[in-house]
């Protein structure tokens, strides 16, 4: 079972994603703004973090940047999910280290597939790391 942190300031979307992912068999923890997100990131380990871009306290790019700059959390899969669709923002997100970018409105089925793929890749990576040791 995988641990997913969903960061999203739209209440409807937050609950909907939580329900969908739980049904798909994931453990879901939610955060409704940047501040809560940072607290929850500090407290626990996640396999995947899914974040919105525009939220109170801190924007999603900061979340991405902070995860990637923390050596312990390098392996976390990051999906950015936002209604912002301009090219610049999307490339920025990828450059900072996001693994995937979903533009709202999203397809629930697609989200689940991407999460599964990301989890599969991730476990692959972890194995590689342990082999090297």
């Amino acid at each position, binding site marked *: 079972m995988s641990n997913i942190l969903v960061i999203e300031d739209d209440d409807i979307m937050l609950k909907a994603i939580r329900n969908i992912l739980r049904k798909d068999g994931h453990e879901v923890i939610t955060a409704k703004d940047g*501040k809560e997100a940072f607290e929850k990131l500090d407290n626990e380990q996640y396999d995947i973090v899914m974040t919105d871009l525009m939220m109170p*306290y801190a924007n999603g790019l900061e979340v991405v940047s902070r995860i990637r700059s923390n050596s312990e959390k390098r392996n976390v899969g990051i999906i950015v999910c936002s209604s912002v669709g*301009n090219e610049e*923002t999307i490339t920025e997100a990828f450059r900072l280290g996001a693994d995937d970018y979903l*533009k709202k409105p999203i397809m629930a089925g697609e989200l689940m597939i991407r999460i599964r793929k990301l989890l599969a890749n991730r476990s692959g990576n972890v194995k590689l790391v342990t082999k090297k040791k």
Partner: protein
Amino acid sequence: MGVTFVEIASGFFETSVFIYGVALLLIYALLAIMSFLNIALFLRKESYTDYKVIVGSPLAPGISVIAPAFNEGLTIISNVRSLLTFDYPNYEVIIINDGSTDDTLEKVINEFSLVKVDFAYDIKLSAKPVRGVYKSRDEAYAKLIVVDKENGKAKADATNVGINVSNFPYFLCTDVDCILHEQTLGMLIRPMLEEENMRVIATGATLRMANSCEVDEGVLIAIKAPRPLLARFQELEYIRSFVMGKMGWSYINAVPNVSGGLGMFDKEIAVKAGGYDPASFGEDMELRMRMSRYVYDNKIKASVRYIPTTLCWTEGPTSVKIFMRQRTRWARGLLQLMLAHKKMLFNPAYGRVGLIVFPYNFFFELLAPVVEFLGIIYYLFLIYFGLVNWPYAIILLIFVYTYSVMISSLSVLWDQLTFQYYKTWKDVIRVIAMVFVEMLIYHPLIVVFSLRGYWFQLTNRKHSWGNMQRAGFKKKSDDKPKKPQPAVSAS
């Protein structure tokens, strides 16, 4: 002979004051009606609008958010952070460190991993020298630009530097310690994008007091009416001035001023008009006047619009001393501006600005304290000679009082119709209570401080710079020009 002269003089004085008073009351009544119509129109449009559309659009025009900071070390981090979280896809945040003597700059550099960069920009508006431009190494803060400059002793100077550095066709002028609504950019750009056949050169929204609001790291948690008496009076004054005054004037495209605390501008026009004037005591209204002159001189059909929603919360002065400085400065600014642009008065070449905005501000904002003061002297004179008809005098006094109470009460109602910011009745009552005592406590203060300002301006004309230094950014929440320009003052 002497008696007849006094009679004629007093007759003349009474008649002109009577006409003046009637005109003023009619204007307020008219403003109440126009603002109601304008708010109703706004609310109808809001009922189906979704600002998320602009968030998701690649066509959203770019906006530069310009926020000067002077000795804001205590709160700068959370303030900058909150400026970086607007719900808008295409903007940059330009923080101007106006030669702070505290650790404002160091704090920002550390927190956002800034480095000094070779930054080329055109000095379109002259201002104090820039010591350095900083950008973040962390791409999450790519929107942020921090400019370190020498202190210019005026917000205008700092904002001009921000305009020079900015990259987008629109700019939002604010203060770093203002708390802004996350939808500010979308809501203020909208009027710019939906007017037919006219270029909207500036937009603004309502400001309110942040004094007793619950704020956490630059994010507004709960909106509350201020508790300190002075701030409470200002809250009422701002509501009246924005929700009734500016919205009313906006209905007929005659907004006198876009507040320095929050305003969005068309950069091209603002730059061509010459930007902010650092020597002005009321640089926000001054810029608006110059932009108007520019558009009329160049035959551009332009407008300035306001929306009734509160998008900005600012700390109002709570000590009478600081409040006095603020209002003295505003009054100086108004007089200075009226003298500088006097050629616009009743000048049909400047359209509504020449025929409505300017005359109104000249007669009913600039002269109001003077007329009121003379009226009181006149009454004292009558009392001294036992010439007062007391029943009539009292009736007139009650008349003025009830009328001003009515106007303020209607403003509170219009505000409540727009959006119910206060969650509890207590907050509403706290503001309403001020309606009834404002004329007795707050209003006399404003009259005295305004006269003080006029006096300073008239006597110190040559030393205005020296005064600026005292009046500039000296203390936090000092007399910064977040000016509501009370378009509707009590009585």
